[in-house]
């Protein structure tokens, strides 16, 4: 008898079986081969033949090895596992589920592709909006322990952008306060003329006190940051720290920049350091290019930056660790009061007022931001909208999964029959959903990274609320937070769209499914689920479309609103002669020469100037007194409006000659300003209708006088103009007066020239630029733009919201359409035999068409009714974002309903057409 064992062993090499196991297999197989060999010999074969034939039993042993490799694994990887409820092997099971899930997805690329695209759109939209929301609303400054940072300010409603704390008080609070581990102050950013090796450009500068970087805990990336000594009168040289971006842009990231000199407004500064790339300053959206010590800054910047004379704009302090802000605020309040009481003269009234003053310490962890207030509500709203879009997308995927579950019921029934627990199967199906969601999420992130760039472009192109005019810069990276958010959303989505189908798919009547191919998972049940999802989708898209419709109407209203002036054909540009060293008395004559010269340029109809352009987002208020007039009771009072303190005082504008003519405002009475209204002529003012009505009622205002106090003394009213929008299109024009710029001591800052042209305004831009250069070669023109463009900028937020809301509305509509189409197609398939019988019995095409369309439109109508109800309840939240349109605007509701009905009809049409193509014979044979 030959020994088979070496032959067998040779074929098991490489499997690395456990020795006892291998011995058992070898014994069993050699026993088998012995039997075989014996039988062959008994049958009369020669020993050689018998040996050969017996060995042939081992042919194909690579299959043996392969099978053994599978079988001898601790976990059987076959899909048709028996399944147990044991808790051990959780991880191994999960791995198996994942591999199996991946295989199932690859097996049906069409399904996978559609599901992934749907999810990617939904998740991507969420990720994009979140990344923006995170950057604007949630993210803390990239500094050391941001939660310890506070703004230090005295309660001071009338000075919105000031701490209302003087430099002396700041020093006292900083030195005496046991509560603070450090304090510094800084200004808002301002334009500075920077000259590096002969080349001039306007950059954003920010004045900071010496402790700025050490309080924040921001180290220099190269070089060093400021010390307190850099910010003293005694400092040996003027130094500056530059931002990473400016370093990259202007110095080509050359590390040798340290020690280089840069001329700021004509004064040389030595660059001592570069800030790290992630640090974009502490005012969100206003990233400075150059940081200047406050003492040096005061020397080169206009008068309004001499903070040491008045109050400091922003004070930033770091609390001692673990000290609660209220406790620190109480102690600092005491210090501030003592300091002020010591200074105050004896009057007890004043002393009592001081004792009411407090120090507030709002958190500075996120830095200072006007953007946050402006975009808080719109961004939350958009996030809600994209969440709804995602929900609709999930419903579509759930529908696909339901359909697939029907196709897979055999597999599922088999597994249940073989003893797999339902929990185990649901888990398997959920893992598949999770895989889908993760692939969708990853694709969505790609989409988001592309979209958020666009979003940031729109947000930052809207007007800059802090320093009107500067370009906003915002850092919106797709970082770990966005990544985490996306993962979380994907996970949630997987549960939302996967759980119900998995639950349903595993609730089976086993025997019918196993016995017979026809049914078992109630086809009707699957349709009912699908129908519910479609109704929900229709309702949700109606809500989104209604929201979008309201925003569109609102935007149209904003664009067509009566502004009170002519927006077309006006060219604007701004200058600030103080930046190149002009003194106040020189500025008047410079402006006069510019007005005269520009007026002679061909194509210029008229030219004027104003402190601020119309609808540029800024305005000025000042209190007045009218001799012999008792002002209305609420004059000069403060009121709280949308979280902002509002001062009830008239607005005013310092403007040039022919202002009303140039801007096309309607002069109701009196005259326009002329070149003869100058420093030494009679002080005059033009008022608007609102002003006239508020102070004079029916009295004739012409010739009346009012007193502007320190701002300009007594002026005589020489004209009345029709109300015109000045700050926001949305506002009711407040009472406003206009004074000649030469007669207002506060007018000597950045000024905007306004030129009415005959043709396209931008065509004149270069001519105007060269004309100005002739007069003053060093004067830089900035923000050269048309009035129309500036107005468009002023409604940037509204445009952003409208564009996105419409986009999301359409996306929702598209997804809903796909959902409706899918459910109807499925239902037509299910009802093929019914339709066949009907047609066999003589039903006409029209009847069949109606049958299917009726089903689809019934669902749509139900969804619309629910959606309208929900919209009525929810759109009220939009009220304060709308302009000139009611949240329950019937036109919007009607058009959205019609749009939805038409699109739904389209989605029903194709399945219905297919139903009419059913061949009764084939349909009946299916029975």
């Amino acid at each position, binding site marked *: 008898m030959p020994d088979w064992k070496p032959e067998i062993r040779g074929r098991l090499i490489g499997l690395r079986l456990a020795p006892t196991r291998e011995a058992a297999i070898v014994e069993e197989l050699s026993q088998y081969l012995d039997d075989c060999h014996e039988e062959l010999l008994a049958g009369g074969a020669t020993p050689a033949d018998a040996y050969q034939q017996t060995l*042939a039993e081992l042919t194909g042993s690579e*299959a043996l090895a392969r*099978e053994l490799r599978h079988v001898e694994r601790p976990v059987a990887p076959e899909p048709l596992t028996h399944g147990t409820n044991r808790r051990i092997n959780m991880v191994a099971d999960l791995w198996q589920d994942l591999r199996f899930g991946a295989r199932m997805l690859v097996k049906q690329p069409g399904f996978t592709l559609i599901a992934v695209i749907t999810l990617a759109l939904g998740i991507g939209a969420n990720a994009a909006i979140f990344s923006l929301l995170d950057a604007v609303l949630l993210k803390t400054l990239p500094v050391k322990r941001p939660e310890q940072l506070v703004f230090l300010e005295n309660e001071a409603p009338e000075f919105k952008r000031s701490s209302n704390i003087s430099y002396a008080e700041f020093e006292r609070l900083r030195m005496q306060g046991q509560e603070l581990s450090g304090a510094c102050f800084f200004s808002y950013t301002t334009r500075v003329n920077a000259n590096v090796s002969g080349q001039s450009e306007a950059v954003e500068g920010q004045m900071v006190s010496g402790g700025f970087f050490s309080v924040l805990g921001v180290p220099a990336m190269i070089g060093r940051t400021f010390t307190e000594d850099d910010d003293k009168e005694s400092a040996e040289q003027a130094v500056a720290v530059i931002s990473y971006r400016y370093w990259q842009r202007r110095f080509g990231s050359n590390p040798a920049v340290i020690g280089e000199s840069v001329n700021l407004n004509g004064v040389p500064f030595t660059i001592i350091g570069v800030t790290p790339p992630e640090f974009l300053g502490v005012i969100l959206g206003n990233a400075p290019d150059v940081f200047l010590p406050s003492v040096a800054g005061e020397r080169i910047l206009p008068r309004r930056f001499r903070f040491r004379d008045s109050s400091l704009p922003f004070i930033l302090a770091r609390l001692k660790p673990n000290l609660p802000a209220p406790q620190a605020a109480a102690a600092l309040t005491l210090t501030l009061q003592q300091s002020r009481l010591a200074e105050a003269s004896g009057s007890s009234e004043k002393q009592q007022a001081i004792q009411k003053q407090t120090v507030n310490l709002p958190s500075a962890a996120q830095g200072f931001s006007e953007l946050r207030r402006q975009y808080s509500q719109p961004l939350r709203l958009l996030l809600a909208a994209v969440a709804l879009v995602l929900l609709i997308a999930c419903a579509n995927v759930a529908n696909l999964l339901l359909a697939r579950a029907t196709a897979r019921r055999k597999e599922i029934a088999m597994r249940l029959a073989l003893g797999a627990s339902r929990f185990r199967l649901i888990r398997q199906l959920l893992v598949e959903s999770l895989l889908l969601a993760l692939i969708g999420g990853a694709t969505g992130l790609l989409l988001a990274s592309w979209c958020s760039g666009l979003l940031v472009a729109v947000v930052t192109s809207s007007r800059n609320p802090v320093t009107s005019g500067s370009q906003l810069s915002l850092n919106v990276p797709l970082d770990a937070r966005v990544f985490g958010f996306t993962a979380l959303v994907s996970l949630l989505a997987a549960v939302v769209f996967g759980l119900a189908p998995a639950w349903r798919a595993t609730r089976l009547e086993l025997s019918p499914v196993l*016995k017979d191919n026809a049914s078992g998972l109630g086809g009707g049940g699957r349709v009912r689920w699908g129908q519910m999802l479609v109704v929900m989708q229709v309702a949700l898209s109606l809500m989104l479309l209604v929201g979008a419709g309201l925003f569109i109407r609102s935007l149209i209203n904003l664009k067509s609103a009566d502004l009170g002036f002519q927006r077309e054909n006006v060219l604007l540009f701004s200058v600030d002669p103080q930046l190149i060293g002009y003194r106040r008395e020189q500025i008047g004559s410079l402006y006069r020469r510019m007005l005269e010269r520009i007026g002679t340029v061909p194509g210029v109809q008229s030219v004027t100037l104003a402190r601020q352009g119309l609808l540029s987002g800024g305005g000025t208020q000042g209190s007045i007194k009218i001799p012999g007039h008792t002002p209305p009771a609420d004059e000069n009072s403060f009121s709280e409006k949308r979280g902002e303190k509002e001062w009830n005082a008239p607005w005013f504008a310092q403007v040039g000659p022919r202002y009303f003519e140039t801007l096309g405002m309607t002069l109701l009475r009196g005259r326009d300003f002329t070149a003869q209204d100058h420093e030494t002529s009679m002080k005059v003012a033009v008022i608007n209708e609102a002003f006239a009505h508020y102070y004079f009622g029916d009295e004739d205002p012409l010739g009346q006088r009012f007193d502007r106090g320190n701002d300009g003394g007594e002026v005589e009213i020489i004209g009345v103009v029709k109300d015109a929008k000045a700050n926001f299109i949305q506002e009711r024009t407040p009472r406003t007066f206009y004074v000649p710029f030469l007669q207002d001591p506060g007018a000597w800052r950045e000024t905007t020239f306004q030129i009415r042209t005959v043709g396209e305004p931008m065509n004149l831009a270069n001519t105007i630029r060269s004309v100005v250069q002739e007069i003053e070669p060093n004067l830089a023109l900035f923000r050269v733009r048309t009035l129309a463009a500036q107005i468009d900028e002023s409604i940037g937020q509204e445009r952003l919201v409208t564009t996105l809301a419409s986009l999301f509305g359409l996306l929702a509509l598209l997804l809903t359409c796909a959902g409706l189409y899918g459910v109807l197609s499925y239902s037509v398939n299910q009802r093929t035999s019914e339709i066949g019988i009907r047609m066999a019995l003589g039903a006409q095409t029209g009847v069949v068409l109606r049958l299917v369309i009726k089903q689809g439109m019934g669902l749509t109508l139900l969804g619309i009714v629910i959606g309208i109800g929900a919209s009525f309840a929810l759109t009220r939240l939009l009220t304060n974002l709308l302009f000139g349109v009611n949240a329950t605007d019937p036109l919007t509701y009607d058009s959205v309903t019609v749009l939805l009905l038409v699109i739904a009809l389209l989605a029903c049409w194709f399945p219905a057409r297919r139903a009419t193509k059913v061949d009764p014979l084939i349909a009946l044979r299916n029975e």
Partner: protein
Amino acid sequence: MTHVNSQKLDRELKKGSAELLILSLLEARPRHGYEIRKLIEARSDGVLKFNAASLYPLLYRLEKRGWIEGKWVEKAGQRRRRFYKLTKDGRKALAAQRSIWESFVAAINRVARPENA
């Protein structure tokens, strides 16, 4: 009946039905590997053939799955042999597979039978 022995059909059939065959053969009583091989060959009139390399992987797989159970049995004067018997789970699986097989065969027949027969 024609003698079908093309390798391809063989492989396909074995893949789909070998488990069912083994389970069926073990329904009546426990058997050892060589016996199973001979029985399949005999009862199929030689249409279905297994060798050691194709049979044992199946047996081990079924055993691993808990549907059959192998046991070494020693009889006086003989070498010990490994006998396989059907487990409770195996019985369930057999019933399920049989019903699938039957509906499959019935379906094939419905499709394949000559029209107008």
